[in-house]
C-alpha cells in the first residue's frame, strides 16, 4: 500500500528543496496556498521560482522574506484596493529577482505544453506585443498554408504545484467550489502535486459525486489539512478576504513577524 499522504504543513513544506519551482494555485487574494507559503518562510527556503498567472500576496510575502529568485507571472498585484504588490515591485526594481513576464495565457500555454507532453504550445494573440522579443519566443508559420503566423511557448514544467482546495480526502483526491482558476492545468503540468485542504471530507463523499474531483489522488503526493489556510485571502464559500489583515500586512512599518503570528496555521491540527 502506498505511504499515507496526509501530513503536517511543516512536513509538506520540508519536502520543498531550496531552488524548487513552485506553481501556486488560486488567484490574487483568492484560494491561494498562503499558509503553505508562510511555512516556506518559517523554514527559510531560498532560491525558489514561483510560477503563477496572477500571484499577489503569495509572491509578495515570499519576496519580502527573500525566499524567491525567479518569478514567471502574467499579472502581479494585491488587488482589492491595494494596488501594486510592494515587496515584489521592490524586488524587481532592485533586481533581487528575475522576472519572466508573461500574459496569463502564454504562461498557461507553457503549462499546457508540459501537460500535453509536447515541447511547445501555440497560443492565440500576442501579436504586436513586446513580450515575444523580451522572452525570445519563436513563431511558427502554419504548415497547412493558411498564412497564419502563431507564437509558440516552450514547455513550463513546475517541480511542484501547490493547490489550496476546499476539500480533500485521506487518499488525496481534491475538489474546489467556484472557479478553479488555473489550478487544473497547473496540477497536470507539474512533476508533483501538493494539496492544502481547508477541510477533510470523506472518501465516500467523493465516490458519491466523482465528477466534482478536480485532482485525482493518484496524481497527489502530499496533503495537509489547514482550516482557514488561504487566510488572509478568501476560500469560497467558506470565508471572505480578511481586508484588515491585508491592510496590516501592507503597512511597511510593521514587522512581518506580527503578521505571521496571526496566521491560522499556527493552530493547525491534522483532522485525519
Amino acid at each position, binding site marked *: 500500500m502506498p505511504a499515507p499522504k496526509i501530513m503536517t504543513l511543516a512536513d509538506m513544506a520540508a519536502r520543498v528543496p531550496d531552488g524548487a519551482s513552485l506553481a501556486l494555485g488560486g488567484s490574487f*487574494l483568492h484560494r491561494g496556498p498562503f499558509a503553505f507559503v508562510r511555512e516556506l518562510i518559517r523554514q527559510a527556503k531560498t532560491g525558489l521560482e514561483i510560477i503563477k498567472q496572477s500571484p499577489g500576496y503569495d509572491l509578495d510575502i515570499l519576496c519580502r522574506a527573500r525566499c524567491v529568485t525567479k518569478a514567471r507571472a502574467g499579472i502581479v498585484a494585491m488587488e482589492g484596493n491595494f494596488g*501594486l504588490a510592494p515587496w515584489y515591485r521592490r524586488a524587481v*526594481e532592485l533586481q533581487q529577482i528575475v522576472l519572466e513576464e508573461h500574459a496569463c495565457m502564454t504562461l498557461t500555454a507553457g503549462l499546457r505544453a508540459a501537460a500535453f507532453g509536447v515541447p511547445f504550445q501555440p497560443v492565440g*494573440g*500576442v501579436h504586436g506585443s513586446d513580450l515575444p522579443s523580451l522572452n525570445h519566443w519563436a513563431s511558427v508559420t502554419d504548415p497547412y498554408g493558411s498564412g497564419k503566423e502563431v507564437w509558440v511557448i516552450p514547455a513550463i514544467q513546475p517541480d511542484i504545484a501547490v493547490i489550496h482546495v476546499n476539500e480533500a480526502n485521506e487518499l488525496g483526491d481534491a475538489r474546489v467550489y467556484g472557479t478553479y482558476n488555473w489550478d487544473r492545468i497547473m496540477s497536470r503540468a507539474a512533476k508533483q502535486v501538493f494539496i492544502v485542504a481547508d477541510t477533510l471530507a470523506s472518501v465516500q463523499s467523493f465516490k458519491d459525486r466523482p465528477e466534482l474531483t478536480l485532482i485525482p489522488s493518484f496524481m497527489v503526493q502530499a496533503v495537509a489539512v489547514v482550516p482557514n489556510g488561504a487566510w488572509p485571502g478568501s476560500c469560497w464559500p467558506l470565508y471572505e478576504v480578511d481586508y484588515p489583515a491585508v491592510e496590516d500586512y501592507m503597512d511597511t512599518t510593521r514587522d512581518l513577524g506580527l503578521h505571521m503570528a496571526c496566521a491560522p496555521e499556527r493552530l493547525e491540527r491534522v483532522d485525519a
Partner: protein
Amino acid sequence: MPDGWSGFSYLVINLARFIRPDEVTFSGVNSTPPMLACLLAKRAYDFDFVYLNVAGGVQPTPSTIPISSSDPVLAEGSTAIFANEDFYDLCTRGGMDLCFLGAAQVDGLGRTNVSVIGDWHHPNVRLPGGGGGAVMLPTARRAVTWRTEHSTRTMVETLDFVTAAGGLAGVVTPIAVFVKRDGRLALQSWHPEASLDEVRQRTGFDFVATAATPTPPPSVNESAALQTLDPEGQFERDANIAPLVDRCSLPRRR
C-alpha cells in the same frame, strides 16, 4: 450626481455603454470599473447580454458587490463555472465580443503598457503586468480599456513598453471617451463640464475629434443602477478620481 457626471460615474457608465445586446462580455482581475459597468448594464439596460467574469461567473447574480473584481462571489447564482482556460480559449477562438482590459499607458494606436515605467530591464516602476492583455486585446472582437487618471503620462505618444496591441475599440477616462477609427484612437465624446481643449491638453497623443460631442448625461436608469451598486459611495471614494476642476498641474501641450 443627480443630473450630471462625477469622474467616477462618467467612467463606469461610459464603460457600460460599450456593452451591446446579446454579446458575450467579460470583466477580469484588477478591474473594478468594468465589473461595476457590467453589473450596471444588467440593471440599467432593457436588453440582455452574456456576462462572463474572471471568477468563473456566467450570468451571475452576486449577492454583494465585492471590492476585488476577481472575488468568487462574482460567480454566485451562475448556472456554470467557466474557469480561466475556458474564457481565454473562448476569446482566442473569436467568441468574446467585448473584453475589458486594464492599462497604465495607452498610445494613439490603442496599444497598452501595463508592464513598466522606464526601461523594462531597469525599471523606474515595475507595474503589475498585462494579465490577459497580450492575448485578449488582439483576439477579442472588441476590447475596451480605461484610466482613472487622464494625463499626458497615461495617454502617451510613446509607450515605455508595448504589453498588448491589436483590438482596442475604446478607452474611457474620467473626462473622455475614445474609440478606434481608421487604426487610431479618435475622440467620441467628452465630459460636458470639461472641454475639447482640456482633453487635448491632458492627452499625450494626437487624435481627431471630428463629430465628437459632449457626452450625453447619465440616464435615470444608469444613475439609479449605479446608486444600487454603490449606495454608500465607497467605490467612488476608493477610485479616488481627481476632481475635474483641479487643473493647476495640467501641462501645456507641446
